[in-house]
């Protein structure tokens, strides 16, 4: 029996190895932390166009596994990936700071506004999402819905607001941006008030949206794509772009970067050129992700305002990245995470 088992195991090992993909010249490896449903079609088009095989690793939602940024850091001494596509800035900025990214200024980046590009070329932004207030249309009238995130501290909404864990994902970007914009004192104050208003802190942005859709809470903070998925699913939710006339709407670009010492750097650069093209911005705008193009003149999603029509919240990305650890710890104390 033992010899049998050993034989089976050996055979299986050989079989496994035989099916392992061989590395070839015409391929590129990308780590993608943009949702798979949105990014996979974009990459498939590139494969069909160029014949280059795109081998992708997709990320899980940030609250469910430790994810690709950690993998890139762990692989830093012997990189396996060529390109990193992040759907929010914080991860990219941490990777830049830790020396896991390389500089590359793509000719395709020309039309993208300079606030969304790293002057040193470690990352380039494209198609953006916004952080929005989502509310349940059966429980809250449109006229009543808050216009600013500061309205969420109003006692009228006590126990009726949900946010995702601010230590992770796009919410971590949002809080980093708020601390950069408001300064520590006012930002601390805002979160203290939110806490006093019994804010519900849940594992992810999709959970915020689901709780609002089910009416467990009346409103919450989440991302545009999350809300749109629910709207297309005919759930009773709507969104407000907050603070368009105040501190500005938090705009969250995708960020594309070349990995430091990428094994297929040239192939990586070509893929980056493609991902920064107007064509990709158009595809992401037309998809369920409803991402707004950063370039002027590219047709945006139907039900979303164009970037030029509101005041975006701008920030010094590098400064915000330096503060991630400190902000995380402050929030742990204030919100009792």
């Amino acid at each position: 029996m033992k010899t049998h088992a050993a034989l089976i195991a050996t055979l299986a090992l050989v079989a496994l190895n035989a099916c392992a993909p061989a590395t070839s010249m015409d391929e590129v490896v990308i780590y993608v932390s943009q949702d798979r449903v949105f990014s996979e079609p974009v990459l498939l088009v590139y494969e069909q166009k160029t014949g280059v095989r795109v081998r992708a690793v997709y990320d899980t939602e940030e609250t469910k596994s430790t994810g690709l940024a950690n993998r890139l850091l762990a692989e830093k001494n012997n990189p396996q990936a060529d390109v990193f596509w992040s759907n929010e800035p914080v991860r990219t900025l941490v990777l830049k700071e830790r020396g896991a990214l390389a500089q590359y200024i793509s000719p395709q980046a020309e039309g993208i506004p300079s606030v969304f590009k790293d002057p040193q070329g470690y990352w380039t932004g494209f198609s953006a999402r916004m952080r929005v207030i989502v509310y349940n249309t059966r429980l809250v009238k449109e006229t009543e819905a808050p216009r600013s995130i500061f309205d969420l501290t109003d006692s009228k909404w006590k126990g009726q607001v949900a946010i995702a864990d601010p230590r992770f994902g796009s919410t971590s970007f949002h809080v980093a941006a708020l601390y950069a914009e408001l300064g520590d004192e006012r930002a601390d104050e805002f979160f203290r008030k939110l806490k006093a208003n019994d804010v519900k802190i849940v594992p992810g942005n999709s959970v915020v949206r689901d709780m609002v859709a089910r009416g467990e809470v009346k409103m919450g903070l989440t991302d545009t794509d999350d809300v749109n998925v629910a709207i297309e699913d005919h759930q009773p939710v709507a969104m407000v772009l907050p603070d368009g006339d105040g501190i500005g709407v938090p705009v969250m670009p995708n960020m594309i970067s070349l990995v430091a010492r990428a094994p297929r750097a040239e192939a990586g650069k070509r893929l980056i050129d493609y991902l920064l093209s107007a064509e990709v911005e158009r595809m992401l705008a037309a998809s369920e992700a409803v991402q707004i193009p950063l370039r002027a003149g590219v047709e945006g999603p139907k039900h979303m305002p164009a970037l030029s029509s509101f005041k975006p919240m701008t920030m010094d990305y590098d400064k915000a990245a330096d503060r991630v650890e400190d902000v995380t710890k402050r929030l742990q104390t204030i919100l009792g995470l």
Partner: protein
Amino acid sequence: MALGLAALLFIVLCALPVFYMLGVSLVGADGAFSLNHYFRLFAEVRQLDLFLNSLLLATATSLLATAIGAPLGVLLARADLPAKRALRILLIIPLAVPPYVMGLAWIYMGSDSGIIAQATGRDFLSPLTYSLTGAVIVLSVSFYPLAMLAAEAAARGVDARMEEAALLVAAPRRVLWRITLPIAAPSIAAAALLIFVLALSEFGVPGLLRVPVFTTEVFTAFSALYDFGAATALAVPLLALALMAGITARFMIGERLLVGRRGARNRSPLSLNSRRAGLAVTIALALFVLLPIAALALETGRAERMILALRSSVEAITNSLTLAFVGATMAALIGLLLGYARARMHRFAGTVDLAMIVAFAAPGTVIGVGLIGLWNRPGLMEEIYRSRLIILIAYLARLIPVAALILAAGARQVPASFEEAGEVAGAKWTRVFARITVPQMRAGIIAAWVVSFILAFGELGATVLVAPPGQATLPAHIYTLIANAPSGEVAALALTQSAVVMTLLALFAVFVFREKRLHS
């Protein structure tokens, strides 16, 4: 030599990644040796809460799961129930469903639109949904089958002649309490320890239900702060808790394990009240199997969602099946040799047990990052790292300890005198092992294989970090899809994963059933 090889594999696959990460945790920001990550453990008040939460979660889960599982196991062994084989398989289902999915079902049950509120008109679950109590309930439902299987096997191992003798002077209930259970107790306690360690190292459920414990803290250190050293240091109290549990269990059980005998397979004269037993089993089935599945199905809503989810997962399912099959087989094989070696040890046996328990408690993420550090190096190692073999290695890192623990218990039930008889007759060690020891450990080997397979099939923490491009396993595939999906689709994906495991379990039951008939 085989034993040496198995020991070497344990050290390379299971121990090295953990030691590698411990090394990382001892390096400060400036690259020099530093204990800073560990000072923090004592400096922060928060650490004490985490410690208490982790301890409470693991202890309460271990007790509740055993309280549910052990009686069910005894009933399966000693009550006159119809279709026992089918009942057993049905009652194992919660173990086969990933705890995270159980947690989702639990969330869907609560809320004023949940299944409980709809059935009873009152929403009395919601206050508990996101709480330590909730996490204990979910994990207990997930892990009670382990206690059930251990209790049933142990009760079946009790020599029928002892019960027969006792029945002459005592009522069945008294015989159960005074003869059957005390003899079965060490095996049940061993299962309780296993459940303790599983609950301690579980991340998905406390994460989902927002219970801060060490696993979620380790996760935060990785995911929010990208600090490998701090994350590993935070895993150390977790390993210490596992070690403490192991020592406590050793104190209570010691080397006392029942010695099964061939004669013990006789039909037991003890027969518990079958009406009450039937009622208990029915309630268990309704609460722990039907209710969670119904909650998921209700949330899924439309059947086509399931079909869509299944269709998109075919490749990942085949990948997971192959890898989990090979992984479970190798883990059982290596675990068999290790477990046997440990069972025949006179010195250091306790230390080996504790090493296995601690290795098993190491968080998947720590192992995953450790594996990258060890295997992602230019040359042959890199070739392995780039292939699916690295997923297999991740499985083995997680599974060898648990397979070895189960099989050490199994090997100790084989009397050394049988082997001595074989050796006296002139057979070589390999022959004695293959012809005498292994056949007697058959039940243990099957149990170790099934548990390894189920755990491998659901493994996420380590595999998601090392899976090569395009080689996602089913859990990794599902988690990448869950990110943005509406809750109905999430429920459909969760059901899909459960359905795959349940189908396998059913196939396995048919296979074992056939085999047994052939043997008799």
